[in-house]
């Protein structure tokens, strides 16, 4: 039975984040109550097969978001390259091709800010390895809206600019090691 997700777990990452994301997804339980949405910087000019290769690896569908897809429980979504992904108050995704933010489209800030607005305390944010400051403003918006935010320990990140930006955005950000991040996803409940 497909139902709208009550909670949303959002993950932002860029250069150096992919391996940890794969590790996270490998350790997910078979079913979970939240929707998991990953915004990863990637170039829209080159087709990537992230969603299809992960679908094969995990033996479950990993969804590349299209406009007006519903945000469902027990689903894993990736933001498509070349668009900003937003969430609507009625819990659908919408896409937007307005100017890149922080040189990025998708922008993690844009996505997180819109998640903060719609889900507030029912959102959980993660910010992983990356080479720019995208995500820091979005983290602040999430925290201001009552969400919980975790950042990858910069000493473990392949590139620590993005996690450091997340930490600088607010004192309420919690720092987790890679192992703790994977454990977190391993124990999310259905």
């Amino acid at each position, binding site marked *: 039975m497909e139902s709208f997700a009550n909670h949303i777990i959002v993950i932002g990452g860029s250069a150096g984040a992919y391996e940890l994301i794969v590790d996270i997804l490998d350790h997910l339980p078979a079913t979970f109550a939240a929707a998991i949405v990953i915004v990863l910087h990637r170039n829209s000019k080159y087709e990537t097969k992230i969603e299809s290769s992960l679908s094969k690896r995990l033996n479950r569908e990993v969804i590349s978001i299209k406009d007006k*897809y519903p945000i469902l429980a027990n689903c894993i979504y990736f933001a498509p390259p070349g668009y900003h992904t*937003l969430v609507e*108050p009625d819990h659908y995704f*919408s896409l937007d091709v307005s100017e890149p933010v922080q040189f990025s489209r998708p922008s993690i800030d844009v996505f997180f800010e*819109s998640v903060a607005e719609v889900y507030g305390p029912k959102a959980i944010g993660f910010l992983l390895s990356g080479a720019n400051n995208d995500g820091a403003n979005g983290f602040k918006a999430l925290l201001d809206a009552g969400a919980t935010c975790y950042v990858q320990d910069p000493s473990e990140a392949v590139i620590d600019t993005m996690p450091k930006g997340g930490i600088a955005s607010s004192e309420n950000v919690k720092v987790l090691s890679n192992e703790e991040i994977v454990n977190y996803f391993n124990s999310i409940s259905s």
Partner: protein
Amino acid sequence: MAELRNSYDISFPEIEELIFLLKNVSDFDLSGYTRSSLKRRIQRIMNLEALDFVDLKNAVINIPGFQQFFIQEVTVNVTEMFRDPGFFNRLASEILPYLQTFPRIKIWSAGCSTGEEVYSLAILLKENNLYDRSFIYGTDINSKVLDIAKKGIYPLKKFKEYSDNFNAYNSKESLSNYYTARYDAAIINHDLRKNILFSTHNLASDQVFNEFQLITCRNVLIYFDLKLQEKVINLFYESLALFGFLCLGTKETILRHPVMENFKVVDKEFNIYQKIK
């Protein structure tokens, strides 16, 4: 440009209030627009103009020309030449052979913004010796972007990306055959413009104005909610000749709408449909 921070904010209930107000004092009805995207765009205007919500409502009612300015700024006007080169490949290989069986080819580029896609279509037709019997209508809600489209003059710095797109579509020729560069601008060749007309058209409120063999509307429906999407797709259906084609953005999903039963999926990846009944 200095980065804009969200020092001015607008809540979802305030957006509803503004939409209602605008509908009452102007021809613009934004009630079918997706709210999260609208919120970003309105906040951008509030920060550009240093207006809080009360000031904004006041400006909409009392400042001459502000409604037009507001619509210009609230709509997203990002476009490229040959965006999604694979789409143009598919048009050339799958759709043009079909279109050339029509005596006249009328094309509608809906939501054409500053016109780059219209000129891309013109180049595509030219290369396939179909331009002389084609006519392209480019429409947008925003008259200011149409002024740019009519001039056909674009910043030269954008043409590096456009050339990359073009080369991915057709590596044999060069995009520079179709424009003249001068100082920091690129001017689209005159012979590409003779069968093009740019005009305002509001997809949310305006009606059928011609019959077309091809309609392209890429990355416009993403700003509309499901109800307005359905209305616009019905408008496209009524505007298409039988066996005409409808092309949408690659990330748009419309198959849930009942009118799509009258279409055949021609290309799933690039969202190309043919009206079959």
